[in-house]
């Protein structure tokens, strides 16, 4: 099977989507001739034509608005927002329009769009190239939020998102575009070539939304993570020698509650890891759900490992970014009698 990094896997997914469905088109800032600042749409315009993959004005709200209108017409637009930090200008279009259209129109109209966006930290991008805004989307009824952690899932989840008839926010952890990153920034970079999930079929396939992956089975405790944090948690588990079960949520809406609950009921302990600021982050919802559904099985407090409650601090990246050491400490706290 060919080996791909996440950028190549996403590019392959988009290439297939354009090939299979004439009603699918792509637009966004710099995605056309240039192929995107992260190269995810590389060569797609050249291969499929200028109207299938083209540059958009620097107007995120306008991009989403146009995509909603195209969806109402019957197309399946896939748009790129250059950084997840820049989805915010389009937040109203996503919440007040895309998320509500099917409901309020009694099903007459819907917004089957996919909003791709590089997200998360670890690249010294500073305040506006590093944020993880997933929690504010997860709270919005009508939106789905997908976050892959590896090339194989990225391709399958993106194709599933494009095929989905509802608006999907597809957040791409840019720190793992070119290789799995476990938080050990002091060590040499790894590539996807040596990683099993870097093996990606050329063909069309989907990974269903709402189905979590048990990355590593274990009995001592359950670690819930998504995106880059799956690799950070994996490293922490490996290095600690703790027999933790690691679950990659893959999509937070829909959320695979059954897999989560079954695991925590077995282990009795739970650590939640995300990059986003802790307060009001998605970890709060996860903690509440686990607590509500596994209360009598819990043997210690559910722990949250997350970014601090500060803006994303450029020079303090590794003090802010939740690394293996913080995950390790949290796991040990949950194991205290």
């Amino acid at each position: 099977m060919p080996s791909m990094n996440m950028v190549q896997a996403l590019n392959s997914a988009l290439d297939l989507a354009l090939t299979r469905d004439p009603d699918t088109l792509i637009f966004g800032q710099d995605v056309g001739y240039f192929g995107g600042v992260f190269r995810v749409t590389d060569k797609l315009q050249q291969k499929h034509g200028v109207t299938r993959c083209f540059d958009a004005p620097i107007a995120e709200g306008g991009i989403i608005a146009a995509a909603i209108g195209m969806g109402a017409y019957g197309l399946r637009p896939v748009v790129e927002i250059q950084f997840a930090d820049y989805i915010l200008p389009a937040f109203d279009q996503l919440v007040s329009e895309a998320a509500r259209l099917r409901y309020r129109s009694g099903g007459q109209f819907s917004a089957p769009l996919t909003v791709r966006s590089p997200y998360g930290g670890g690249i010294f991008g500073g305040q506006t190239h590093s944020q993880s805004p997933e929690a504010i989307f997860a709270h919005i009824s009508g939106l789905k939020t997908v976050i892959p952690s590896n090339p194989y899932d990225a391709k399958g989840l993106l194709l599933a998102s494009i095929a989905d008839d509802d608006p999907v926010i597809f957040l791409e952890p840019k720190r793992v575009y070119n290789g799995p990153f476990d938080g050990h920034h002091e060590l040499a970079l790894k590539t996807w070539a040596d990683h099993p999930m870097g093996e990606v079929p050329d063909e069309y396939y989907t990974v269903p939304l709402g189905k979590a992956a048990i990355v590593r089975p274990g009995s001592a405790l359950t670690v819930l993570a998504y995106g880059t944090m799956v690799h950070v948690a994996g490293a922490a588990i490996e290095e600690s020698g703790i027999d933790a079960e690691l679950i990659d949520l893959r999509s937070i809406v829909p959320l695979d509650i059954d897999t989560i609950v079954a695991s925590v009921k077995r282990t009795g302990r739970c650590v939640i890891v995300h990059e986003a600021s802790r307060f009001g982050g998605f970890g709060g919802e996860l903690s509440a759900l686990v607590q509500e559904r596994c209360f009598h099985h819990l043997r210690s407090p559910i722990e949250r490992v997350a970014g601090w409650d500060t803006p994303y601090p450029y020079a303090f990246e590794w003090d802010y970014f939740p690394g293996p050491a913080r995950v390790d400490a949290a796991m040990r706290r949950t194991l205290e009698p």
Partner: protein
Amino acid sequence: MSDTNKLHLHIPAPKARPGDAVTFDHMAIPAAGKLRRPEIKAPEDQLRDLPYDLIRVLDDEGNAVGPWNPSLSADHLRRGLRAMLLTRLFDDQLFRAHRQGKTTFFMKSTGEEAIGAAQSLALGASDMCFPTYRVVSWLMARDYPVVDLVNQIYSNASDPLKGRQLPILYSARDYGFYSLSGNVGTRIGHAVGWAMASAYKQDDKIAIGYIGEGSTAEGDFHEALTFASVYRAPVLLCITNNQWAISSFQGIAGGEATTFAAKAIAYGIPGLRVDGNDFLAVHAATIWAAQRAKANLGATLIELFTYRAAGHSTSDDPTKYRPATEAQAWPLGDPLERLKQHLILIGEWSEERHEKLTVELTEVVKSACREAEAIGTFGKSRPGTREMFEGVYKDPDWRITEQRRELGV
């Protein structure tokens, strides 16, 4: 440069407030029939005077004059008159229904009926309208079942929107009428996207999007026009300038400094300023812009100059912020009266026929209300509670199913 003279902050204010004498003398009204009608292929730099003029066809006597006269058939004009009158009667009836507690909310489009009616009849059945809440006459002109409007307003068991939406925020896809929502400004960009999609598919359908003059201040307006200009989208973008945004006069949206039609110039597209109370002028401008759109010449911005004769909504009392007599003083008159006058003048209508039509349409509205009330007014009947949980997504996830179970529906 002298730093001595102090700055001061300018706050726009309307010419008259309650108690003041009403005057529209400051408003220059060009005579009907004078403005030229350019070729649709005319380059934008030859059209930059249009936004400062006013396209008018009906003169004060009711004659249709000048190059913009669309020379419509009497049948077409009568269809327009019917749609406008039906809208007027419908508004009055449902406004009363609100006072009688049959609904929680209602909005009238009194004085603006020509706009939706003329444009609905000017455009094709498969074109798509992205409306504001003031163009219900679009639906009236396409014979949308009045009872379904009332069912929606009453949110009863037959509400096409299943009780999920505030009264008058209709959606009627089969009538080329896009889903309304309570927030303003956001859907004009959908019109552009829809038009881009039609062009992308090499289809021949065009879109028309509406926005109130007050809402043009939203960033959505600018982004929509930017997209329309950049991709030459086949779309008509209409600003219904009814002078007021709730209690704020159009100067708060920039109307003191220039016209709303002039915003077209920022995007290098034509801007037409049209007498919105003149059915013929609205039709003519719409056809001109539609022909441009269909000829791949791109978007046109149309300012429909009119006046919001009624309150903003049933929650509003306009006498609190503008003279009660301002509506009557509006120099461009009543769109319904002006079309009626024209039809009578050309011998295609009469007071008697108008009387008969009024009686007929009053009954249309009343019977629709009766039919709807037989199902139930607000609170007396409504769609199954289960509808609250449907349609959030195409397929519900466990949250919806669990919560539906918790509520026991």
